[in-house]
């Protein structure tokens, strides 16, 4: 793997972000709005419910973590969509760039863009709404890591889906986080869900993060091994997503889809 080629993919996105307010602003504007909305919601709930229960670390913290996961996923897919929108596949894939270098470039770019969103959320949540990360302890970092890994996996899966089904299918990708959120238990314990939904939840690394986050916020003890299981699951899902993308790309080269992608001529 040549890092300069992966860096080229990320550099292209940096140039686009630098030159376009419409691309740069969404990196932090929507998550900032979410922090404000859910920050006030948490404050209000604190005033109408039991004095001992603090909604800020549970509700606002959950929104922060879930938004971070979405930013990571979209950080990957947005770079890929830029190639779709500018009809750049032939230039990219008829070059020495390998699949791992291309995906590496998407990940590099996502690290930069999601970090910016995270920083804005952390500053807003802690300074304006008093979210204390001490409530989660040192596990806050592994929580972020697991969500980051799953965001990468889902982002690569989304790119493969659009490569396989054509440009219009990007609308399948945008709602994926909303589709998963009921199963991930972002706002409630997994025990709230029926058994079949819990079975799905156990395949989703974020569900381990949000269970842990709630346990720690309530002052309980959380098994690190449970989080390790979530991290392992996320790594396996990244490998599966990469394998899926590679398979879809191979098929696209076999059928000629890459060369006439915008025509949506190959189903």
């Amino acid at each position, binding site marked *: 793997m*040549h890092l*300069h*080629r992966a*860096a*080229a*993919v990320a*550099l*292209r996105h940096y*140039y*686009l972000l630098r*030159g*376009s307010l419409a691309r740069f602003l969404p990196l932090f504007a929507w998550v900032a709005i979410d922090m404000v909305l859910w920050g006030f919601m948490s404050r209000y709930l604190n005033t109408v419910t039991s004095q001992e229960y603090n909604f800020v670390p549970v509700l606002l913290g959950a929104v922060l973590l879930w938004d971070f996961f979405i930013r990571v996923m979209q950080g990957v897919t947005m770079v890929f969509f*830029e190639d779709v929108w*500018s*009809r*750049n596949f*032939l*230039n*990219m*894939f*008829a*070059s*020495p*760039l*390998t699949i791992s270098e291309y995906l590496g470039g998407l990940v590099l770019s996502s690290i930069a863009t999601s970090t910016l969103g995270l920083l804005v959320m952390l500053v807003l949540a802690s300074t304006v709404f008093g979210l204390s990360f001490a409530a989660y302890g040192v596990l806050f970092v592994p929580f972020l890591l697991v969500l980051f890994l799953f965001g990468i996996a889902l982002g690569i899966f989304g790119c493969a889906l659009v490569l396989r089904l054509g440009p219009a299918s990007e609308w399948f990708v945008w709602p994926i986080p909303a589709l998963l959120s009921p199963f991930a238990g972002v706002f409630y314990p997994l025990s709230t869900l029926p058994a079949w939904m819990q079975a799905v939840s156990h395949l989703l690394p974020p569900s381990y993060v949000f269970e842990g986050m709630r346990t720690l916020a309530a002052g309980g003890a959380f098994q690190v091994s449970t989080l390790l299981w979530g991290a392992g699951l996320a790594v396996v899902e990244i490998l599966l997503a990469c394998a899926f993308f590679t398979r879809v790309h*191979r098929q696209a*080269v*076999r059928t*000629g889809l*890459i*060369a006439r992608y915008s025509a949506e001529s190959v189903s």
Partner: protein
Amino acid sequence: MRAMVTVGRADVPKVLSVAKLRKEYGGKAAVEGVSFEVGRGEIVGLLGPNGAGKTTTINMVLGVLQPTSGTIHIQDLDLAAQRSAALALTNFAAVYSPLPGNLSVYQNLRVFGLIYGVKSLGARIAELLEQFDLVKYRDVKCGVLSSGEQTRVALAKAMLNRPHLLLLDEPTASLDPATARDIRARIREFAARDTGGVLWTSHNMYEVEEVCDRVLFLARGRVLLEGNPRTLPGEHGQASLEELFITVAREPLALEQR
């Protein structure tokens, strides 16, 4: 006019060797048993009517379309087995594949220069901007350039890595005659000065005759004729390359039987 190169000369090092290339879609062959070579310093024209298999062949050489059978070697590298290394020696410009219009000329050249692993990239970009008369457009977005300027940018990108094999799919399509002549001169200069060979497709027979050392006529996915564009028409009883092209397009079977 360029010095003539003997067809398939054995002593010219080959930058591209295509052997028994076949591509079929749903059992129907788009390209069938195509074999040819491009030598160093040679400009080879790939001619044929629409749907003859030219772009399919070029896409296979570019590694974006997998052949059903046959082999492609760029220099000594097997494209199927050493794709990335082989494509690092290649570059291309095609009228249907413009560079992203939302990046400036410099940004596009920088991104693709990194992808192709160009050494001393800043100096190489400056050299190409000068060579293709693009200095004043350095920071202009490619999408707002005229088609002639965009073609020059595409050619600058195609020459970033000093490719051993340069593929040009209708590089002068939709250009005015003066710009087209300018582009042809630059490509001839590349073939004469650098160590690369060029595979060129065009529907402009005047330019093919002026630029190409050798031509291959494709019809219905097969190589029908091969030879010197200046002598080939006479060898087949035609007055000009354009007449020969029309015959290939309308009556390929008549030529096959000769």
